[in-house]
């Protein structure tokens, strides 16, 4: 059980049960849909900008504990940041959860470092990155649906 607790840390369980900024926006500056075919999860991220700064960000959808907590904590950590800062944060977050960086190497990730346990569960990387990919698409304002399938192993392509 101890290694499962590395994945499902208290902070993650808390955010998954009580996600923050879990709401839609009626007239957002942009929005994007994210889809993870592995688990069938869909998520919408809404963004309101003030110039180049993320003024407000929220999300909706049904997902697993990892993707819900990741989305919740993402909204908290990118609010007030510039587009470039948000994207750079995603890069460092991504490096952390695929095991490129050790938690100690990214002190500026702040609370997001609790996701470091995901590195031991490669099939769950996509759950943690889905909201971020979706945010990135929203920031790029292309409005397209993003899929997690450009990333990592274990894409579900068939079977029964």
């Amino acid at each position, binding site marked *: *059980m101890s*290694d*499962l607790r590395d*994945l*499902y840390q208290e902070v993650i*369980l808390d955010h*998954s*049960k009580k996600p923050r900024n879990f709401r839609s926006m009626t007239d957002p500056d942009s929005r994007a849909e994210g889809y993870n075919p*592995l*688990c*069938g*999860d*869909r998520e919408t991220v809404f963004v309101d900008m003030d110039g180049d700064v993320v003024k407000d960000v929220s999300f909706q959808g*049904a*997902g*697993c*504990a*990892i993707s*819900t907590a990741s989305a919740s904590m993402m909204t908290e950590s990118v609010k007030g940041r510039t587009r470039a800062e948000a994207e750079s944060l995603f890069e460092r977050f991504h490096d952390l959860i695929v095991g490129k960086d050790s938690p100690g190497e990214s002190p500026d990730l702040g609370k997001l470092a609790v996701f470091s346990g995901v590195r031991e*569960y490669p099939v*769950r990387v996509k*759950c943690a990155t889905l909201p971020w990919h979706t945010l990135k698409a929203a920031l790029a304002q292309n409005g397209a649906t993003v899929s997690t399938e450009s990333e990592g192993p274990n894409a*579900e392509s*068939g*079977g*029964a």
Partner: protein
Amino acid sequence: MSTALREPRASAYDVESIRRDFPILSLQVYGKPLVYLDNAASAQKPASVIEAEREVYERCYANIHRGVHYLSVHATDAYDASREKARALLNAAETHEIVFVRGTTEAVNLVAQTWGRANVRAGDEILITALEHHSNIVPWQMLCEEKGARLAVAPILDSGEVDIEALARLLTPRTRMVSIAHLSNALGTVLPVARIVELAHAAGALVFVDGAQAVPRMPVDVRALGVDFYAFSSHKIYGPTGVGVLYGRAEILDAMPPYQGGGDMIRSVSFEKTTYNSLPYKFEAGTPNIAGGIAFGAALDYVTRVGLSRIEAHEHDLLAYATESLSAIPELRIVGTAREKAGVLSFVLDGVHPHDIGTVLDREGIAVRTGHHCAQPVMDRFGLPATARASFGLYNTREEVDALAGGIRTVLRMFR
């Protein structure tokens, strides 16, 4: 033990002895004994199958249907013997009604692409059900798109049973094919195939049955069922991957155009004209999975030796036991409650995503499938993104069901 007690053992189902035939079952994962409950996705292989494949390469490997030399003759005989075993398993009338393909998916595609292209016209209809696996949806969808035909879908009830009255109403003079699963991979529903065949034939339609989940779990007699096509995969019946069977009634197969062009499927080739080989080779272009096909025969020997009726009874007992054990967990809901079920138990837990169930069970050594099970329309029907699914094989035990129930309680402790 007295002789009196010993006597019934001849017919008793000795699951421990069966387990010893499967080397992988002694594996430990994360320090826990493996509890493999993902048999609907793919089944594990007995030593006799692993040994048969190895023996092909060590003792009797060459290309088949070609050489006059010793190895080729022996490989050809062994490969053709598997075809005869598949015929016997399905009780087909003729060995040449058994076409080897890569798996059930390819069988559906073969029929859609050959029979379908030759027989389906604009305005015609193909009828499937709402519980089909993607591989029994998409090939027909592609055919309908190409031909301007319509894909009709018979609805399912909340229990996961096909609404037979609705299906009957959807049969029209334009229905060319009714394509159905024998056993739903996502819900465990056993479909009343003989009844559906009766209705379809009365309407002038043919019937294709996806038997991928049924063939490993119950005796199947294609002539008693009256089906026109029936398909299944080796890897789900304890054989190697990359081998499958398409059964078709000879007169229908005969009238169908070939599938892929290439070697083995021709009788003679010139640049002006090619004449095609006889059944079943007309549909078998190229060098097939020879070793896999031979080892598939060993898998059929294995299940025949255990006995499919006995396997069916064993899995029925496990499913009933699991249904009872899991129903005792208040937060758990079983998805798929048909009266006739086999081998498959799909469930969801209040407030816990199936993906998280899968990860926690995995660390307990328990392998289940989580996701949409390649049946997204089924998930949509029940308003779920996904379910967790335990599916049984001939080697599973009641103790493993207990481990599953314990694992689910661990999940609930963690997330609630």
